[in-house]
């Protein structure tokens, strides 16, 4: 009798096992489109057999744990490379925008307008008496001023845009820290109960990758299954089930978005902008505070030297009315920000007769000063007497081109690495419909067979119970 009930028992358990396996297959199919999902498997184990005399009889199987198929070392490697990718991506994106500011391949820019400015003085030297040539000089000067201002403004626009990006990134980073903290708690509880919190772990792995994309992080798991996250040189973002937030607000003398870190609820906050490295945040800060600041500095230097040199020659001359020359450009107080204020002296702007062309009074045909000013174009004024204005500007365009080219190439190759690793991960953890369909058939058949076993046992009962009627 015991055997029949065992059969029923084995059948019942097997049906339940198949059901579980089918549910897991269903979960896999559904989870196929979940980011960073690892396919799951039911560990089906045999029950403890019973021994009857010399016979050892199997007692069927039971479902052990549902585990995920996952390679933690691969996950860690992907996390690291993804962080690199975030940095390369942020850099390539922002640098490409900078490149557009300096792109004169297809349209006109500062290089053109500087040439036109000096050429206008050459035209004026040809006909110093002509009001038309004087007007040409003023227009060329205005255009050049606008082009200087345009570069300055566009670079500052990119800085402002990076500020905005930083704020968004920091917000998202905080959300992720919080989510990891709460996942830590759930995972710890589940592991205490001896179950495997697969979906939570997948999610936590994903969040670690995404956090790395934003900023350079390091992390480690303790014996309870908690993951502590440390952001580069800044401090601890997640520890156990608590998370520390970063703040990003525009403040300080620079009026730039700065990042602050508070290491406890009531602690004081520190400015950590310079400590934030890696990821999109690190790339953004680097481009904003180093690359763009340098470029702004060099365009300011150029604008300042241009105004200073032109003024120095211009003031030595005499205007159309035989009066001593005045400043051609309004001279700013300092080099910083000079590019934004390349403006022609208001007096000249109103009356082009005030442009000095002559080296002596009452000599309308004297073009000495115009010649001196136009000669500035070919003098090595910039970079401590090493470069002309054209050289200086063209060199910086070339430098930007090289840096952008490298940034884009880095991004491409990093993307390839991450894609390759992603492929390897999918090969290990990814869901295959073919495979799940096969499993479904397999377990459906097992389910059918188990049911048949129960029916056989039932019939056997019937046979036994009907014995006495015979």
């Amino acid at each position: 009798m015991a055997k029949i009930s065992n059969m029923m028992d084995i059948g019942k358990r097997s049906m339940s096992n198949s059901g579980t396996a089918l549910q897991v297959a269903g979960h896999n199919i559904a989870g196929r489109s979940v980011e960073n999902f690892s396919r799951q498997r039911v560990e089906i184990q045999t029950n403890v057999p019973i021994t009857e005399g010399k016979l050892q009889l199997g007692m069927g199987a039971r479902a052990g744990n549902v585990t995920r198929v996952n390679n933690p070392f691969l996950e860690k490697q992907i996390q690291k490379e993804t962080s690199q990718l975030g940095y390369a991506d942020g850099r390539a994106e922002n640098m490409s925008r900078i490149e557009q500011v300096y792109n004169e391949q297809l349209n006109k820019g500062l290089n053109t307008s500087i040439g036109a400015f000096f050429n206008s003085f050459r035209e004026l030297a040809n006909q110093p008496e002509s009001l038309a040539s004087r007007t040409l000089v003023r227009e060329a000067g205005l255009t050049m001023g606008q082009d200087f201002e345009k570069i300055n403004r566009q670079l500052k626009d990119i800085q402002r845009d990076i500020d905005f990006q930083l704020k968004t990134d920091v917000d998202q980073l905080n959300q992720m820290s919080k989510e990891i903290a709460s996942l830590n708690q759930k995972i710890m509880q589940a592991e205490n109960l001896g179950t495997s919190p697969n979906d939570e772990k997948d999610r936590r792995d994903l969040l670690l990758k995404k956090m790395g994309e934003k900023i350079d992080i390091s992390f480690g798991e303790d014996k309870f299954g908690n993951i502590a996250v440390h952001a580069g040189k800044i401090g601890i973002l997640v520890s156990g089930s608590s998370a520390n937030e970063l703040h990003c607000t525009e403040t300080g003398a620079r009026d730039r978005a700065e990042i602050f870190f508070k290491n406890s609820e009531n602690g004081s906050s520190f400015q950590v902008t310079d400590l934030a490295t890696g990821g999109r945040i690190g790339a953004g800060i680097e481009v904003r505070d180093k690359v763009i600041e340098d470029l702004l500095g060099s365009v300011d230097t150029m604008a300042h030297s241009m105004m200073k040199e032109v003024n120095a020659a211009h003031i030595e001359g005499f205007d159309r009315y035989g009066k001593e020359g005045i400043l051609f450009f309004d001279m700013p107080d300092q080099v910083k920000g000079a590019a934004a204020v390349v403006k022609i002296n208001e007096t000249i702007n109103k009356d082009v007769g005030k442009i000095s062309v002559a080296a002596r009074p009452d000599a309308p045909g004297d073009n000495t000063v115009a010649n001196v000013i136009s000669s500035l174009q070919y003098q090595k004024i910039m970079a401590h007497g090493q470069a002309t204005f054209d050289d200086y500007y063209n060199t910086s365009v070339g430098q930007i081109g090289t840096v952008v080219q490298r940034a884009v190439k880095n991004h491409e190759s990093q993307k390839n690495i991450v894609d390759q690793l992603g492929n390897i991960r999918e090969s290990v953890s990814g869901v295959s419909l073919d495979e799940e369909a096969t499993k479904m058939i397999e377990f459906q058949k097992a389910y059918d067979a188990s049911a048949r076993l129960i029916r056989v046992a039932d019939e056997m009962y019937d046979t036994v119970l009907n014995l006495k009627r015979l």
Partner: protein
Amino acid sequence: MRIADKMRYGQVERNLQNNRAEMSQLQNQAATQKRVTKPSDDPLAATRVLEARSEERGNVQFTKSIFYMKNFLEFSDQALGEMTEALNRSKELALGQASDAGASALTRRAVAEEIGQLYSQALQIGNRKLGDRFIFSGYKTQTQPFDKHGEYHGDEGDMKVQLHKKAFVAMNLPGSKVFAGQGLGADGIAHTEETPVTTPELMEYRHELDNKPPEQPAKLEMRSPASVNDILTSGINVFNVMKSLEIALRTNDKEQVQSSLNGLDQALQQVILARAELGSRLSSVNGTLESLQKAIVDNKTLASQLEDAEIFQTVSDINKTDATLKASLETSGKLIQPSLLDFIK
């Protein structure tokens, strides 16, 4: 290798993306006809293209200046040619009246009339204008250089024009030198003054100008017949020579007419030397013009080689990429579609 579904989808997506990106870049090349559309496409080429372009813009401006200058020089040359003719004619007439053979007080008076006319013609030549500029009055282009007494009111300024990066060449000959005979070099040639090209030079130049004693207005000198030494060291006022010839003829002063011949010779030589100077400037300007025009073409060629897309190459690349894209699309469809589920009925 175990192939998961996401690998297949990812592969399809990446391949199509790559094909599309390549196609878009090639299309951009075909549309702009440029290989380099932003500095990062080829930083070295982009820099050199920028350099070539600034160079070209400079050169185009220099050619413009040169055409203007040529016009000015040729116009001056023509004026000097006419002046030579007037002087030659005066000399001819003076020769005829220098002796008593076939000349008398009466003929001399008649010839004096003609010399008077030649004199006003010469004045008109000295006061010639190109556009609204007097060409012989130095920097004072808005001031008529010679009054009716042949007195000079311009200055000695040389208007310099930039021919190429490093060279400034004077465009005009001041009347003070050519016609009034002042400030000529020891060789009788109208040398041009160095003018500053840098700001420090300009400041020094200004300093010198400020400390120079005020210029004496050019005096009308009634010159005595010039000696050989005079010819070598200093010039002569063309108008004065003609005026004194006219007076000599009018007063029937035979000796004075004879001695005027010397002055006329000297004046002729002075004008011819000035013409020679113009001629040499013109030929150097023409030489520069030729090399500039060649440089402009060279620069264009260089820029084009650096940045322009090879159109045949681009089109053939487009066809190739198009074929690849179509193949990707076709195989992608096949790769994505079938799964085991399609066969379980």
